[in-house]
């Protein structure tokens, strides 16, 4: 089940040098991310711009932001990680510490209430309930 070793780093050219128009090698996702989400934004005095269009509909949000997927997969700490979100490190560290304590407490509770009550406890455990398949 383990993936084959990959040569490193995997380099993909964003364009093929010397072949005008031959830029199909750049992945569409990478291009969309750049042209929709980066680059100079000019406001005012404009007939149309992306900000007017409310482009970031739910569909595109899903494509561009991965946070929802991460949450679905049970890694919501991602959202609080300052390094991934640019937020505050201490808050995230505290958050992790609290989550660890919470998990420990939940486990203690689960073990104590194991006799005949595990079903109920499972309901009360958001993680277990959310990620049960």
């Amino acid at each position: 089940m383990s993936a084959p070793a990959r040569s490193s780093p995997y380099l993909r050219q964003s364009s093929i040098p010397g072949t005008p128009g031959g830029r199909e090698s750049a992945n569409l996702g990478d291009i969309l991310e750049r042209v929709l989400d980066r680059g100079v934004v000019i406001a005012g005095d404009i007939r149309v711009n992306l900000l007017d269009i409310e482009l970031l509909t739910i569909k595109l949000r899903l494509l561009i932001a991965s946070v929802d997927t991460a949450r679905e997969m049970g890694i919501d700490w991602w959202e609080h990680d300052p390094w991934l979100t640019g937020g505050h490190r201490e808050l995230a560290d505290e958050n992790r510490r609290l989550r660890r304590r919470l998990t420990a407490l939940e486990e203690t509770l689960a073990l104590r209430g194991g006799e005949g009550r595990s079903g109920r406890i499972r309901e009360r455990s958001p993680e277990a309930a959310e990620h049960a398949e």
Partner: protein
Amino acid sequence: MPSDEGVYLYAVTRAEDQACPEGLTGVSGLPVRSLAHRGLAALYSLVPLAEFGEERLRRSMEDLSWLEATARGHHQVVEALARMLPTAPVRLVTVYHGEDQLRRLLDERRDDFVAVLSHVAGRSEWAVKAYAEPYESAPGEESGPEDDRPGLAYLKRRRAGLRGREAVWRRAAARAEFVHEALMSVAVEGRLHRAQDPQLSGREELMVLNGAYLVDEDRADEFSRVLGGLDGDGVTVELVGPWAPYSFTALEGEAARGAAP
């Protein structure tokens, strides 16, 4: 200019003789023009408002095949320009009423554009992504000693699985942070972007690093070598580039507006 046409702006660069490559086409296959003003040049196309008017765009931006063609047309102009001159790419579908407004833009934001262009001159953007290898539960997690109580055993398995998966992600994120710091020793500037959804990245593994790095052209090989030495430890790295400096051309005062969706 006919009133049923708009001015579609791709990028701003320094005004030089070769500012507009011969025969270059942009969105909808339209020819690209150059307008020079006070040492700057704007690359643009005259676009039919039937296709690029606001009302129509509201619908066509939802059409992925139209969006793809337009994004590629836009990107093609930006990249062609960036291979020759320092370039400030403008966001997709920035449409003006007329060339006069472009001139006014180059007037009013001249200092900002000059600063941005000198910052990116002789440098390229390199995209680095790191993916965490998928979590696979260890065999020991599958069965515990308390199988006589299936409910509890199930709960413990779930917890072990979640803990294992979370530990894998944490390790991968720590590793990705290390990768970022190592790359910053070579790059002039770095930006961490939101990690891409697997639908967008086209890979099943979750992305733990989606970075853009502004690198001096004569240090590009060194950058690639440094990255090459960082692959592994549960993380696979990918390098894509060089790109036009899409991530490093926010104008002063526009950054906040640009960040809000």
